[in-house]
């Protein structure tokens, strides 16, 4: 019976061992090969001291080792923590400390930048390093990834995990504070894979291009659906949209998922997308924000034989809604309806169901509702609450996920996004907490006040604008301020605009008046 994440791989290895499973540049691995390396890595991780439930970070760019690590950690009964390759050492340290990471899988080229932070992670016992390079002297035990994969697994693999066990932690931001770890069980991830592969009709002939990082729920879901169905997953490291188009052609890609920013790049007026017939491309999906209507129009004109699925999900509930392609003409601005085996409720502040057209909070119920945030019981209790619609006799037996997204539903059950309940910013698919950016601005020691807001941007969804108040009498170079930020944060978190104010607008209780700042920008 298949109920754990690595069982999805195991079943495809058994069914189609010689089928191409994973492609990256010149590397082509069959399911047998992926299964062998995964089992080798799992065996070695156990030998290195990994116990059931231990958290293992994976800080790698898109690569074969990244995929093997996800399944290897899972098979060894550890919990994998994918870390976006764009994050800088400061954020890696936060994640590692927050989840009490025991081991970290990273590359030799990334290790140098991490040397300083590694000694500040008390729980970290070992590192598994991909690729050759000079191993810097660190306090932890160092292992070579290639050696780990070569280990011979025992004839019979002993595992006691069940589907309710924690499988992965995905770090994501909210409206305040540092990123929080969303806990996903094996059941969550496996259910997400089965649900999505059902409505996208994914089969073993699928060739999926993975552009989204696996630290995103939608990115991870693509990997799972490909391996569950015995399809092929193609990895890419790209800077130019044209590189994606080349791979779409060369690898006869059938499925591509992206965030609105990617589609905007591909739909640029002189994009090579329109110059290549992409007859293999069966479907594309959008997630991580609404696709601008102009971009959607270009894509539909250019890719006439390709189905377009608009999707919505939040990490806390993995995947929530999708708009079937045949509905696109009738309701192009809709975020769709509930995915199979899922119910989406629109609730008002009293916890009652909203009428059609009445704005309320999107509340998700179904098998992909996560286990909450790692080590944050209060925030978990706010996001995951007892289902208010169950009869009291059932008690608090079911938790539903409050998304913080305001939506309305039409009388046929299709949903429309209105806005956020809080101040969270979303840029190129990334969730950004204003307070995390403000904290870094304050760390420069140059400011008396700082507040950031998201302002609308055609390509990115939102970009960050910072309002800053210099310390009295001190000159302020905004360029130097941004340079310091760029050292400590990935580029998508660095403010695009900075305005110097003599005072920040305040509410009567003395807090920063964010609505007043938004009004200044006419938002």
């Amino acid at each position: 019976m298949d109920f754990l994440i690595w069982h999805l791989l195991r079943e495809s290895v058994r069914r189609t061992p010689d089928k191409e499973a994973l492609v990256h540049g010149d590397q082509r691995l069959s399911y047998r090969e992926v299964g062998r390396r995964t089992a080798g890595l799992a065996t070695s991780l156990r030998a290195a001291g990994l116990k059931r439930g231990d958290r293992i970070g994976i800080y790698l760019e898109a690569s074969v080792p990244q995929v093997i690590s996800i399944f290897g950690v899972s098979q060894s009964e550890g919990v994998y923590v994918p870390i976006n390759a764009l994050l800088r050492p400061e954020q890696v340290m936060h994640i590692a400390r927050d989840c009490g990471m025991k081991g970290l899988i990273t590359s030799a080229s990334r290790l140098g930048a991490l040397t300083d932070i590694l000694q500040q992670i008390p729980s970290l016992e070992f590192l598994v390093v991909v690729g050759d390079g000079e191993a810097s002297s660190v306090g932890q035990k160092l292992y070579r990834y290639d050696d780990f994969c070569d280990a011979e697994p025992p004839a019979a693999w002993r595992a006691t995990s069940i589907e309710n066990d924690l499988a992965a932690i995905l770090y994501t931001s909210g409206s305040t504070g540092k990123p929080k770890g969303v806990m996903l069980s094996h059941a969550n991830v496996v259910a997400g894979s089965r649900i999505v592969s059902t409505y996208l009709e994914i089969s073993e002939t699928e060739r999926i291009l993975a552009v989204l990082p696996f630290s995103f729920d939608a990115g991870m879901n693509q990997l799972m659906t490909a391996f569950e169905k015995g399809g092929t997953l193609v990895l890419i490291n790209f800077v130019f949209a044209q590189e994606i188009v080349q791979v779409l052609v060369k690898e006869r890609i059938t499925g591509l998922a992206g965030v609105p920013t990617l589609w905007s790049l591909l739909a640029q007026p002189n994009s090579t997308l329109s110059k290549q017939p992409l007859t293999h491309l069966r479907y594309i999906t959008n997630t991580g924000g609404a696709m601008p209507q102009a971009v959607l129009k270009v894509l539909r004109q250019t890719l006439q034989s390709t189905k377009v699925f608009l999707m919505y999900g939040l990490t806390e509930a993995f995947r929530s809604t999708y708009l079937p392609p045949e509905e696109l003409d009738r309701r192009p601005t809709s975020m769709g309806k509930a995915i199979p085996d899922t119910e989406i409720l629109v609730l008002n502040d009293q916890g009652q169901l909203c009428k059609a057209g009445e704005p309320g909070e999107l509340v998700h119920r179904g098998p992909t509702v996560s286990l909450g945030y790692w080590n944050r019981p209060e925030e978990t209790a706010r996001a995951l609450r007892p289902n208010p619609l169950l009869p009291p006799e059932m008690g608090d037996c079911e938790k539903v996920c409050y998304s913080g997204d305001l939506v309305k539903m039409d009388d046929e059950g299709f949903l429309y996004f209105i806005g956020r309940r809080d101040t969270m910013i979303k840029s190129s698919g990334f969730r950004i907490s204003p307070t995390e950016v403000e904290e870094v601005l304050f760390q420069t020691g140059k400011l008396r006040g700082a507040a950031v807001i998201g302002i609308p941007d055609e390509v990115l969804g939102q970009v960050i604008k910072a309002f800053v108040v210099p310390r009295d009498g001190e000159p302020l170079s905004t360029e130097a301020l941004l340079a310091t930020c760029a050292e400590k944060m990935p580029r998508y978190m660095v403010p695009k605009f900075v305005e110097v104010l003599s005072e920040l607008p305040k509410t009567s209780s003395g807090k920063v008046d964010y609505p007043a700042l938004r009004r200044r920008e006419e938002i």
Partner: protein
Amino acid sequence: MTQTQTIEDRVREFVLKQFPLARKNGLKPEERWLESGLIDSLGILDLVHFLEEEFKVQVTDEELLPDNFQSLQAVAAFVRAKQTNSASIAS
């Protein structure tokens, strides 16, 4: 801006201004900034926009390749080649 500034100087100035991380780490002419993540997909679009405005060249999508944009040196060479081509067509 003065006439004596080379293409390389002007691109460097733009990158230092636009990409704060470059200021901290300095910028070597041969540094491969795509690989180091200093400039990403969206950053490249900003850079292309700048080249088109500043040097009056047209960058086609076919020319948007790592070879032309992987370093300060590569960008300067690319702009020089574009200018030479359009000059020879004009004459």
